[in-house]
């Protein structure tokens, strides 16, 4: 599903604050797999996840999504790949404050050709599945951390993505909520989605259902 070949990402290249976030990384994420990127803070997990999800372009190397080399795609096509293929769950949720749960979940589909009524119906379905029906008209900033994380998951799932990318999804959750979240990610995997989780939480990576653990340190993959 995802193929990375000698990928390097340098932020602020050529400037005094230049940072090499990912160095010469090659890896393969099979379709329908559940993989974990593990490593300490600053090891390059989030940057690599961003590169996989077309959130940024590599400074060097190739990234193939499905059959398509996306490393040099024009911005417009890259956005299309991002919208149709990936669903993101961010460490800090990154919800839009001030609007409701339902509106946050609907956001990815606003710029599509789908009618508003259909978007609303689909979002309500997702919100119901995640147990947030009673809160669907609440402004998101009033929700608990666990609920906000579920809204973020709902937003990631609304476009029926093939790949779910989760960045430190348990970082702000207690053990119970973390288990609940892991359950949701396992369910998505069970439904055939490819799931990639960046984490340094053993509650996530030390689990039998994880099919592939990729360890990172200083922007490189640590050989197994």
């Amino acid at each position: 599903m995802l193929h990375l070949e000698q990928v390097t990402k340098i932020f602020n290249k050529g400037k005094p604050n230049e940072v090499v976030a990912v160095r010469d990384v090659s890896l393969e994420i099979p379709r329908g797999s559940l993989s974990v990127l593990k490593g300490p803070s600053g090891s390059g997990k989030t940057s690599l996840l961003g590169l996989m999800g077309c959130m940024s372009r590599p400074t060097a190397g190739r990234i193939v999504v499905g059959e398509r080399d996306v490393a040099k795609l024009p911005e417009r096509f890259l956005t299309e790949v991002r919208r149709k293929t990936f669903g993101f769950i961010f460490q800090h949720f990154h919800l839009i404050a001030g609007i409701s749960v339902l509106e946050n979940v609907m956001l990815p589909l606003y710029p599509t050709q789908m009618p508003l009524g259909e978007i609303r119906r689909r979002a309500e379905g997702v919100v119901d599945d995640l147990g947030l029906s009673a809160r669907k008209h609440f402004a998101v900033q009033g929700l608990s951390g666990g609920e906000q994380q579920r809204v973020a998951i709902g937003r990631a799932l609304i476009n029926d993505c093939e790949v779910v990318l989760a960045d430190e999804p348990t970082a702000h959750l207690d053990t119970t909520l973390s288990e609940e979240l892991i359950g949701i990610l396992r369910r998505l995997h069970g439904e055939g989605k490819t799931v990639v989780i960046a984490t340094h939480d053993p509650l996530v990576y030390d689990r039998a259902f994880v099919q592939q653990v990729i360890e990172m340190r200083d922007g490189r993959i640590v050989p197994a």
Partner: protein
Amino acid sequence: MSKHLKILEFVLSSLLRRKFKNLGIVAVFSFVVFILASILFLTHAFKAESLAILEGAPELIVHKIAGGRHDLTALRYGDEIAGIPGVGRVLPRYWGYYYDVSTGANYTIMGATGSPRSTLQLVRGAFIEAGQRGVCVLGQGVAEARLTGLNGIVPIMGANGELYRFQVVGVFTDPSTLLTNDLMLIAPEDIREIFDIRPDMATDIVVQVFNPSEVANVAKKIKYRFPELRPITRTEILRTYETLFSWRSGLVILTFVGALVAFGILAWDKATGLSAEEKKEIGILKAIGWETSDILALKFWEGAVLSLVSFLTGLIAAYLHVFFFGASVFAPALKGWSVIFPEFRLRPTIDPYQIFVLIFLTVLPYIAATIVPSWKTAITDPDIVMRG
């Protein structure tokens, strides 16, 4: 289209999220539009009134200058002017300003039988007929100030200290209130008596010129032949009005330069950067699949909604202020001390060109100021934007 409607729906809920900030912007923006629109409306209305006054006015009038001041003009000048080639009829005019102690108002009293201009009409009653004495036709302002109407009596103090009583036989209406509002028509014989004008004199002389393009030449000839006379063409008066009101409106705009600067700072603040929160939101929207063009559409609608709401609020407030409340804020500066008393109400007239100018000066810069910084953020990779 459906995509833009959805984005617009998001824009509306988005604007409500920051309602206090946006209300602040609307208030400042509306105030600026209100000031500019009030000044433009008022200036335009005055100019329109001025044009209406001059419609049907004589192409050329001549009066005597004595030591630089307006003096009565001897009728013999009329006979001599009539001999200039190209000159048609030459008619004396009798008029003067009258200060009415009881109302504290200045009227213009004019001696004329029939309608002094083809454009003037009466609401009710009739014009003065030749030979009819002791009657008058009043402008609405004078009638209101004197609390009188048809068949009422208007007393006027003559130059000899005697009180003359005039019965109202007609009240003016007119497309231009400015033209007749302070006017009182009486018989030429009556005005000569009141103002003590000798039979061989007139206030000024109206000169009819056969070919309108020869008016300036005839004026030059009169000036050359009679240096003590001052010929005034209609074009000169029109130019004076135009310059006067444009100059005054410029002056008023200058006094509100502070508000305009505040608006400029607001637009500049928007144009030079987005807040960290706004940048993060653009990054989120990009990350979840919004294209750069979608972000620009979002920001365009955001700017358009805010600026159009502000623009319409300011415009409607200015319209009500100028045409229903007598432009109480700016009228004293724009009218000047010499202009018309009793009060009159301006006729609502709007020049579409002015609306275009206002939009060009306010709405377009604001929308541009909203879009440009968003575009700079939207073309950056979402990963970088969200990291801040």
